[in-house]
């Protein structure tokens, strides 16, 4: 089977710092892949390169067989790469409905179907359990609901690859359980790339885990494999045997 996403020698320098350093990465369709690593390991930079928010210094990104290295971010979104922000960045002054209607209307090609925007937006809100709050300005939603809205906006794009950047950050435990269910739901129709610090979440969700350290891939494998990996333990705990 052909990978949905591959990167070859992907690098990004910030001044003298190599935030991402020659990363070769492959992601299979339908997978839930978690990306973990210590702070500053280059996880967010890596997914920003994939989504097109920043340009690579060198290397290549291939999505579904096509080279997307030089495509602007909006064009990558249209190909099916959706990115949900680490720092919640919903449109605070617009209603929850309008927040979701924006990505929905983007995906509709026949421009005359007014009902379709409504139906699509409400479907995305219902999947995330926000339907009864559709009229509220997004800025007035609780933090947990704003995170869900962020995911709803990603969902509404009908992505083939959904990148979730620390989605459970700041959520209560009860909310996290719902969230795990939601991501499993999403993964039935899309490939999920998940950056996450919360290890129980990673272990429950991920099919495979990629560990970043100092801009490079340190290890990759199933959750069991990663849990047993001595190098990974070093990177996290800072011990040298």
């Amino acid at each position, binding site marked *: 089977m052909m990978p949905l996403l591959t990167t070859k020698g992907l690098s990004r320098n910030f001044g003298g710092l190599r935030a991402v350093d020659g990363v070769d990465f492959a992601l299979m369709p339908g997978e839930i892949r978690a990306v973990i690593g210590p702070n500053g390991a280059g996880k967010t930079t890596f997914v920003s390169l994939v989504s097109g*928010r920043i340009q690579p210094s060198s290397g290549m990104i291939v999505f579904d067989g096509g080279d997307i290295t030089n495509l602007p971010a*909006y064009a990558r979104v*249209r190909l099916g790469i*959706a*990115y949900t922000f680490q720092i919640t960045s919903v449109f605070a002054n617009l209603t929850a409905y309008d927040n979701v*209607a924006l990505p929905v*209307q*983007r995906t509709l090609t026949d421009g005359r179907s007014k009902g379709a925007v409504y139906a699509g937006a409400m479907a995305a809100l219902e999947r995330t359990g926000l339907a009864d709050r*559709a*009229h509220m300005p997004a800025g007035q939603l609780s933090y947990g609901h704003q995170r869900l809205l962020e995911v709803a906006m990603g969902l509404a794009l009908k992505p083939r690859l959904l990148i979730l950047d620390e989605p459970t950050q700041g959520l209560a435990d009860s909310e996290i359980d719902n969230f795990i269910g939601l991501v499993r739901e999403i993964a039935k129709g899309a490939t999920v790339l998940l950056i996450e610090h919360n290890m129980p979440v990673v272990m429950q969700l991920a099919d495979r885990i990629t560990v970043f350290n100092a801009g490079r891939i340190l290890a990759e494998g199933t959750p069991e494999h990663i849990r047993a990996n001595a190098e990974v333990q070093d990177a996290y705990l800072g011990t040298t045997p």
Partner: protein
Amino acid sequence: MKEASPAKAYALHLGVIALLFALSFVLPEYHHGLLARIMVLAVFAMGYNMLFGYVGLLSLGHAMFFSAGLYGAGLAVIHLGWSVPAAFAAGLACGALLALVIGVLALRTSGVAFMIVTMMFAQVFYLIILYFAAWTGGDQGLVVPQSARVLVLGDTSLGLTNPTVRYMSALVLFSIVLLVALVIVRSRYGRVLVAIRENEERTKMLGYDTFSNKLAAVVVSGTICAASGAAYALLFGYVGSTFASVQYSILPLLWVLLGGAATTLGPLIGTLFMYYVVDITSGYTSAYLLIVGIALILLVLFFPRGILGTIRQRWLGWLP
């Protein structure tokens, strides 16, 4: 919920248009003329609001779009002897083309740089008008001859110098632009513009080419402003470089801020308010600008979102 029920909003706007129509028959001559002028300039403010209110791009150079319409229409009549509709179309075309060129260049910047770049382009435009004084009349300006300001429709010819014809022409233009603005801001495109204003980076990550959307907004805004300028030249018969000066880039900003940015009727209210404050106070004292200044300060203190913006925030959330 549906995509908010439109009936109320359309009823309100049609009501405002009907009110302006009715006023034509009851207003004394002086106010009749003033209101015609205010409607034409409110179109200028609506064009400005399209970019400033909805997309959040603060331009300090919109005088160039207004005067592109003004000179485009005026010079076509004076030098080429074009008819009124053709000259009006020429004014629109000049504004749209200028907006496209300026948009492509100026939208490479944002924030303060965008303000400065648009202001500089407007100054260039102003100086070009002065430089080609042989055609433009320089700082004296030109008067569009009365004989040329006649609108021929089939067998009837309407002199645009006639107060009623002038008022009705201004009202027609105002109504069309008002309804077009209402349709735009309620459309999906309007929703994208507001999204760009609120968070451009996020809008890009929803798959929108924000540059193209902003460029389209600059062209729409510039064209509406040019329509106002062209109408001004044809209805009031004067084409002057003052209209290209920086003062006329600041005025629409002021009108929009007063009336309420990102409200469809705010530009009319702001223009109306400003004109009448100046008109009334200058009747009592030569220091009228002092009173205008105080009025503006009070307004900013108590109506920080403009008159209509504050009304919408506090009482009428459905206002478009």
